């Protein structure tokens, strides 16, 4: 169980931290120019952080106690391929979800 004191420190700390991240550029930097090297790194934040976050969950899902799982791996692959081909976020999500549920259903038969 999570300690109540720790929980509130995290909620408030994370609230302030997240807000600062969002306000830093929009509020404080405003129209002032940023160094080119920083902008160059920031351009790749999303494409680096998000796949790094989900990769272990795709390969070793917690729901299967870390056992590699064909429906989840297939769903991840379909989501990625449909997203790459269509550039459409919702189409990618629905294809991935359909693959996941379809294969889980097949495997349960």
């Amino acid at each position, binding site marked *: 169980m999570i300690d109540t004191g720790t929980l509130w420190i995290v909620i408030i700390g994370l609230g302030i931290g997240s807000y600062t991240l969002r306000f830093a550029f929009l509020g404080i930097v405003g129209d002032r120019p940023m160094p080119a090297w920083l902008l160059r790194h920031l351009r790749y*934040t999303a494409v680096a952080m998000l796949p*790094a976050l989900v990769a272990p969950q795709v390969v070793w899902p917690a729901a299967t106690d870390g056992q590699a799982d064909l429906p989840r791996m297939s769903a991840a692959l379909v989501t990625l391929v449909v997203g790459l081909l269509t550039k459409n*976020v919702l189409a990618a999500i629905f294809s991935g*979800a359909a693959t996941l549920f379809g294969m889980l259903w097949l495997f349960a038969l």
Partner: protein
Amino acid sequence: MPSTTPKTRTRASAYWKGFADGAPFLLVVIPFAMLFGVLATEAGLNVLETLSFSAVVFAGAAQFTALQLMQENAPTVIVLASALAVNLRVAMYSASLTPWIGAAPLWQRAIAAYFTVDQSYACSVVQFENEPQMTVPQRMAYFTGVLSPIVPFWYASSILGALVGTQVPDSWALDFALPITFLALVAPMLRTAAHVIAALVAIITSLLTAAVPYSLGLMIAGTLGMMAGAQAEVLLERRKLRHD
């Protein structure tokens, strides 16, 4: 530059365009927020704590990360650092929105900062680039429009998830809503070789460092991925210059 888009957009029409563009994301936001409520309840949080978490932090991925690490009894500093690392991308969103809405009054930018999330950012940047003739108040109206359907359901679904809690059967496989959503958001962003290199380096590093405690592997993987992307961009531009 010729444009086929209507020149006569008003603040109201900008708002409703945003509303229409944001509404489909409910299909993602509702299960995502519910999942947070469910997992928070399983971790021992009550409804008030769960709602406060969602309202104060307002960043799904960071919330999941913090929750996971707290359950592993990670030191508070590590919880905060890892969750903020996961959320570093919003700093980039903020930087990227600045040229478009940086001229808005400070109080509006202060509110927009809180609401800078994947959906509002992704929709807004596409819209602002498609209709560069939009005025700053129209852009703010559009941004507000995208969020209008999403925000109430973000809060409400967190509460709903906390209330139904462990009643959600495992067969719904809600655990995989997060990976699917993130992969779907990332795939269209892989526009250049540098983006693909950044993602590949980050994925390989995160798998190799998966055993590193407290998700520190994520910070290593993310940093190396960003450096690889930035470096690849420089090299590719240099090669292009040489060929030209």
